[in-house]
């Protein structure tokens, strides 16, 4: 940032030297909690997939089983030993549905983040470094996409695809998330490109292509990652909203949003069917935000220390 510092080496060498574990150790306690919650959600989501893979052999209730049809649990039961968090309006186990619901949020979030970083990041770095006509064109397209009310775009795209399977939903989300990543990647690239180590590399006559991949991209990645964490939280909220409107993944597949939707009917009797998915949704997003904030601070401290 400041030109007075005379560093010619790429600063990402410093980042690489940091061990993963020491990063966790440096975390404040609260951020550790956030990380713990996220690890819990991710393992829960994976656990539920394994459970399905093994034909529900693992210890967890069937998220689709409606006990009241077969003489089991009754609808909207309170917590019990069998159903730790009670049952929903169709007498299905709330806990199991919550954990299965985590999978949808997780897949959507991961897809969006990967799409954003890979496609958005590459595109943004490319146009930010190449400048010129490409930049004008690409940024113009991104402006157009950003000008659409996002929910409208999602509603329409979801309506166009007849089958609302998880891969399609995730794909739609992924594509729509690219523009913001392009903007961020481009902005960071503009900053990095004027730095001494890039100019030095150019002076030596390194090919621009290599500069892009060796100098620029490694240096914009931390800010992209920091944004990705926060963006993941945002995307989980949007998916929840769409689910709530009944427009995300096809029922009976549980998602946090459609659980809230289904629970709303009986809100006069009990708020618990809304409370649990609401809590999971909020805690997950809080955790992602906190982790993102913490990561952003670290990135900021690093780059200012250069």
């Amino acid at each position: 940032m400041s030109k007075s510092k005379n560093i010619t080496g790429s600063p990402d060498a410093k980042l690489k030297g940091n061990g993963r574990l020491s990063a966790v150790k440096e975390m404040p306690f609260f951020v550790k909690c956030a990380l713990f919650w996220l690890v819990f959600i991710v393992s829960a989501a994976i656990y539920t997939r394994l459970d399905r893979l093994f034909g529900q052999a693992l210890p967890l209730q069937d998220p689709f089983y409606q006990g009241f049809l077969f003489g089991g649990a009754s609808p909207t039961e309170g917590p019990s030993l069998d159903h730790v968090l009670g049952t929903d309006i169709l007498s299905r186990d709330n806990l199991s549905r919550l954990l299965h619901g985590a999978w949808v949020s997780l897949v959507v979030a991961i897809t969006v983040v990967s799409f954003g970083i890979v496609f958005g990041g590459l595109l943004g770095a490319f146009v930010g470094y190449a400048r010129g006509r490409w930049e004008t064109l690409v940024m113009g397209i991104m402006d157009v996409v950003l000008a659409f009310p996002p929910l409208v775009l999602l509603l329409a795209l979801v309506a166009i695809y007849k089958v609302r399977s998880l891969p399609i939903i995730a794909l739609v989300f992924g594509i729509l998330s690219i523009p913001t990543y392009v903007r961020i990647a481009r902005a960071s690239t503009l900053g990095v490109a004027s730095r001494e180590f890039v100019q030095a590399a150019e002076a030596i006559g390194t090919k621009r292509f290599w500069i892009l991949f060796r100098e620029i991209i490694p240096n914009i990645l931390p800010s992209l990652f920091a944004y990705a964490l926060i963006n993941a939280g945002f995307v989980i909220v949007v998916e929840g909203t769409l689910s709530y409107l009944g427009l995300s993944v096809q029922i009976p597949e549980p998602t946090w949003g459609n659980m809230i939707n289904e629970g709303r009917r009986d809100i006069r009797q009990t708020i618990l069917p809304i409370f649990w998915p609401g809590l999971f949704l909020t805690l997950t997003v809080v955790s992602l935000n906190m982790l993102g904030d913490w990561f952003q601070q670290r990135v900021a401290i690093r780059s200012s220390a250069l």
Partner: protein
Amino acid sequence: MNKSWLKILASLFTIALIAAACGGSDSDSGSSSSSDAASSTETEAETEEETETTEKAEEVIEAGTEAEGDVDTEVEEIVDEVNYGGNLTIGLEAEATGLRPWEDACSSPCLTMVLAIHDTLVVQRADGTIGPWLATSWEANDGFTEWTFSLNEGVTFHNGYSFKAQTLVEMFELQKVGASAAGIVTAANLQEVIAVDDYTVKYVLGAAHSAFPSFLVQTPLGAVFEPYAANDDFDGYSMNPIGTGPFTMDKRDLDNETIVVRNPNYWMNDRDGNQLPYLDSVTFRPIPDEGTRLDSLLSGTTNAMQTLRQGTIRDARSAKEDGADITLLEFQGNNVGGGMYNLNNPPLDDVRVRRGLTHMNNQDAVIEALGGTGISLPGTQWYSPDSPWYSEKVAAAFPSFDFDAGKALIEEYVNDPDRSDGRAVGDKIEVELSCPPDPTLIAAIQVVEQLWSASGMVDVNLTNYDQQTHIGYALGAPPDFQGSHGVHCWRWSSQNDPSTELNRQLAPHTLGVAAAYGLDGIFTPTNFPNYFDIEIFGWLIAAIGTDVFEERYALYEMVMMRLARDVPIYFSGHTATLLALDTNISGINGWVLPDGTFGGQGWAVPNLNQAFITD
């Protein structure tokens, strides 16, 4: 490090606040199961209250037919001294698409508004019979092809024009091409409307129809609108409708509120000669959220509401049990929820599959999932137990819940070497089950899906499309209209005469089918299951060639028996409807016709023309 404990504390506090707030709600969750009390207790209680306050109870009128199920929807009302003045604010389920009777598709909330402003030529009583309204009397020729109506004299529109026979002739020009009326004109085979003199009008049909006045009960053809105003401003009529009805449009703020005020020149008087209507004004508020609509009534923001949702009826009942001052007018079966099997789509072309799937549909569980235990009745046929067309024989013949019987039928199909879906013997059948994303339907199809899957013989693909797409898939595309659906949620029936719906929905589904039976040119896109039975069609035609109720009943019973055998369509539960009112509102179901006979509440739409508010 020590910074973070405060953060945790603050967050925990937030969560604890939420959790603490949640705790209080558990107590009343149990009361929902005890809602077996039939609605008669409510109406009885209401009657008692009214008797106490009434000085001279003139007359007790009983109406409504005996319900056969465990839900009794008897209607009683006392007509006593009336009060003028006051405003009624009704919470409706939705905003009307538009208020042009001949043009806009209209469901209960819309009809409530349309009928406050417009009158119909004739009206239907709760017992299904047709009575006079703007028309004083009518008769048909021997072949039921010409219907002559005598009209009330001295009726004026809100804009001062007089209502005469010529009005109906002018209206017909718009109705012939009206998006909403054209279908009914075709169904009735209405060819011409002739003004015989100023107050006599003749409807000429292309073929016999003994129940023709039933079409005039329906607003698209029957609601009398001012044709000149409609022609002057075709699009704007919705915002400023002009009829002869008890109320005139005052303010129409779309999706927010519509206010109508007393028509001082209304033509109708009550039986004591008092000018109608009694109310100063009526405000219609579209409140789509079910819970909110009920809350608005309970908190006094509105003083009436309507609903077709069992869960809301349950909540309204429990609110009343908890002491809320409301009157509940329940009615069973504006229509019946269920679905259809697309016979063009194997394996649904095989009756064993259709019967098997129907047998596995646990209607009571579906109703329970909708929160409607003790509120809705399981459906077995086109008409509800409240309807004069209901048949016990059909109820017994319908393949009602019998899981093992259903499974056996599917098993038979699955092991049939000649199975129609071309799969290997022993393979599961695959069906698509689709419903619009309505909260109650979403609960219902998940129950059905679970039951079918539990047989181990059926792979179910659930889908939900929005209403319009849902209808689109069932319709298919012009010119043949062969839907691409599988098992499709649908609502059947209405309070209208059977002929008005069945004759079209069971007509040949393609021109080819029609030609094969020598019925050239007779075809309908609304035969959604693509099911045609020439015998049924014959019975339906026979039923509109006679006006003897017993003969017609017997014919429709035969039609229903055939449907119960072939199950192209299935029924889950009758739609319970509720009008909830503040206890000081009367006259909603106690209205009388101009000839002094009793009307009663036969559907979800309140008749506001004789409603009044006591102090």
